[in-house]
Structure formats: C-alpha cells, structure tokens
C-alpha cells in the first residue's frame, strides 16, 4: 500500500512541477522569433502535467481498489500522452527550419499518429489492472497500437531531439546558451524515454523508477531556465554587464597596456 502511495505522490509531484515550469515559461517574454517554439514548449509541459495528474488519480483509484476508475483513468491519460509528441515535433522542426508551415505539417502528421494509436487502443482489449505493492499495470492486447506508440510517437521525436542537441553542441556557442539549450533538450529527451519505459513496464518497480526519473527530468528542465547561484558560479554562467561602470573619465586608452594588462 505505501508503495502505491509513493507512486501516487511521485505522479502528483511530476504534475505540479511540470505545471509550475510551464507557468514560468508562460511568464517569460519571447525574444525575436522564439514565440512559436515557446508556445510549443509550454503545451508540451502542460500535456506532461495533465497526463501525470490523471495517472496519479489512477494510482489513487488503485489504492482504494476501484478497478473501473483505474481503467477509466488509464484511457483518459492515454489522450494527452498520445498527443505529447505533437508540440515536441513542432518545436524541433520550427527551431531547425524556421518554417511554420512545415512545422505544422509534421506536427499534424504526429497528431494523426496519435489519433490512430488511440483508435487501436480503444478498440483493443485491455487486460484487467494488476495491482501490486508498487504499481498498477495494464497491458494492451494490440500489437499495432504498441508499434505506433513505440516507433511513431516516441522513438522518432526522441531521435529528433538528439539530432538537434548534436547540431547545437557541435558549434562554439556561449556557455550560458549551451547550458540552457543542452539541459532543456536532455530533459525533454529523458521525459520521453521514461514515459515510454513507464508505458511498457511489465515490472512494477520499473514503473516507479521510471516515474522518479521523469520527476528528475522536469526538475532538470526547470534548472535549465533558472540555474541556481552555485551552478552559475561553478560553470561560470553568470552574465557580466558593464552598465554600472562610468567610462566617461576613462576615455583615454593609451594606458590600457600599462595598467589593465598588468592587473591580470
């Protein structure tokens, strides 16, 4: 029983932290051309939060032995989960190409994949939930649904994230930007991977462990945008501005070599 309570608590923690992160992104001013990708990122994290809120409710239903509620919550949570790659694909394609039309086109393709997956899920038979000490597990009897879920919905978007990550890390860009972008992409990739592990888990402990990693990934994504002072100092990410420095008395550059270089 306490294992299930821990499981439910992790789900609620994921939901709350993902909502909080989406809220901080919503409060952020989009710079230049980043407005569409920011919206896609917000939708992605809101979908993660919604999914885990419903999954949390499902685990609570399992604690009280309400099987019909457990199955109902499974079906409802499948809806945001199956459309999770849509904003992610839009985000990646838009960031790489800068073309809204092709981003919408590919995102719609993944919307169709999600709808097809849901169709096969709803028409296929589910095994009754197996409630163990740690988790509640439902297995889908449809091979097509599992194949679509695996290949189209999670492996392709994760591969896209990794390609984008490689593309950015291969270039010399400012450390602060590199930290933010790399940590965001790694967090998204980890969330996708562990949602996949969670969905396909046949071992009850595996489900809890994958949810702990999802929670860690959401925290990582938050830290990407709000690095703590200690991390900023350690990785030398802090921006140094000269706004407060009055250089009107220091316009003569003839002594730069004598004084400033000597200081170093």
């Amino acid at each position: 029983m306490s294992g299930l309570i821990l499981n439910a608590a992790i789900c609620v923690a994921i939901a709350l932290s993902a909502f909080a992160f989406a809220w901080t992104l919503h409060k952020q001013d989009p710079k230049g051309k980043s407005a569409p990708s920011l919206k896609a990122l917000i939708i992605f994290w809101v979908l993660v939060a919604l999914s885990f809120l419903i999954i949390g409710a499902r685990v609570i239903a399992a604690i009280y032995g309400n099987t019909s509620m457990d199955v109902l919550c499974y079906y409802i949570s499948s809806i945001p989960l199956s459309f999770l790659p849509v904003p992610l694909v839009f985000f990646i394609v838009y960031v790489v190409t800068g073309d809204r039309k092709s981003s919408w086109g590919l995102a719609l393709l993944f919307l169709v994949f999600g709808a097809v997956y849901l169709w096969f899920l709803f028409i296929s038979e589910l095994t009754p939930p197996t409630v163990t000490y740690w988790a509640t597990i439902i297995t889908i009897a449809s091979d097509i649904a599992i194949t679509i879920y695996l290949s189209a919905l999670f492996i392709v978007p994760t591969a896209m994230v990794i390609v984008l990550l490689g593309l950015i890390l291969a270039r010399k860009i400012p450390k602060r930007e590199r930290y933010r972008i790399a940590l965001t992409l790694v967090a998204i990739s980890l969330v996708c991977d562990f949602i996949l592990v969670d969905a396909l888990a046949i071992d009850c402990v595996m489900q809890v462990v994958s949810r702990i990693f999802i929670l860690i990934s959401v925290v990582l994504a938050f830290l990407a945008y709000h690095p703590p002072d200690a991390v900023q100092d350690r990785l030398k990410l802090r921006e140094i501005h000269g706004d407060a420095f009055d250089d009107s008395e220091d316009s003569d550059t003839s002594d730069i070599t004598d004084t400033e270089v000597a200081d170093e």
Partner: protein
Amino acid sequence: MSRINIAHEREVAAYFQSLGINQGCGDVQYRLIALVLAGNEGKITRFSDIRAYTDHVADRGSVASKLKTVFLLEGLAERVQRGGYVVTDKGLVAARFIEETSKFYRKSVRIDAIIERIP
C-alpha cells in the same frame, strides 16, 4: 568555379567586418578579385573582367591599387601583359580560403538562427 554572387560576397564581407576582420575575408574587393582570378584559372584575366564585379562595390582606382599592393606584391597573381593577369598557386589557395569563409558564414548564420528560435 560557379558564378560569383556579388550581393552574397558583400554580405559575407560585412559579417567578417562585424567580427573585426577588415582585411582578407572581410574585404569585399579582396574576395571578388581572388574569386575572379581563380575562376579564370588557366586563362588570362583582363582587368575589365575583374571590374565587371568590383565596379558594383568600389571605384576603379582602389581596385587597381588592391591588385597591385596585395595580389601582385604577395604573389597571388602575376601580370602577364598590359591589363592581363594570371592566378598563381598561392592565389588559388587564397581563393579556396575565401570559399571556406563563405561556408563558415553560412554555418554560422544557420546556427545563430537556430539558437534565436530556441526560447
């Protein structure tokens, strides 16, 4: 060598000037002269061939001066007749470097655009 795009070369030169590189790859005259000479490899390049490109960006005198003080002096080109020049091996290396800087510019601009689109 493909046809030279003057607007693109001017754009690339402006990019390198913005990085504080005003000579060589940051100099549009240098870029155009090197590319025209390399494009005519194995043939005599007439000064009028060079001017067909450089007239859009600089006056005749400064192009002639650049040709004399940089290309001829450093051995990137050789004067073979009145108003006729041939590119040397060093000149071909210079032209190849200019092409590489164009590639660098394209990659740089592309990655900057990607970073700009990430929130």
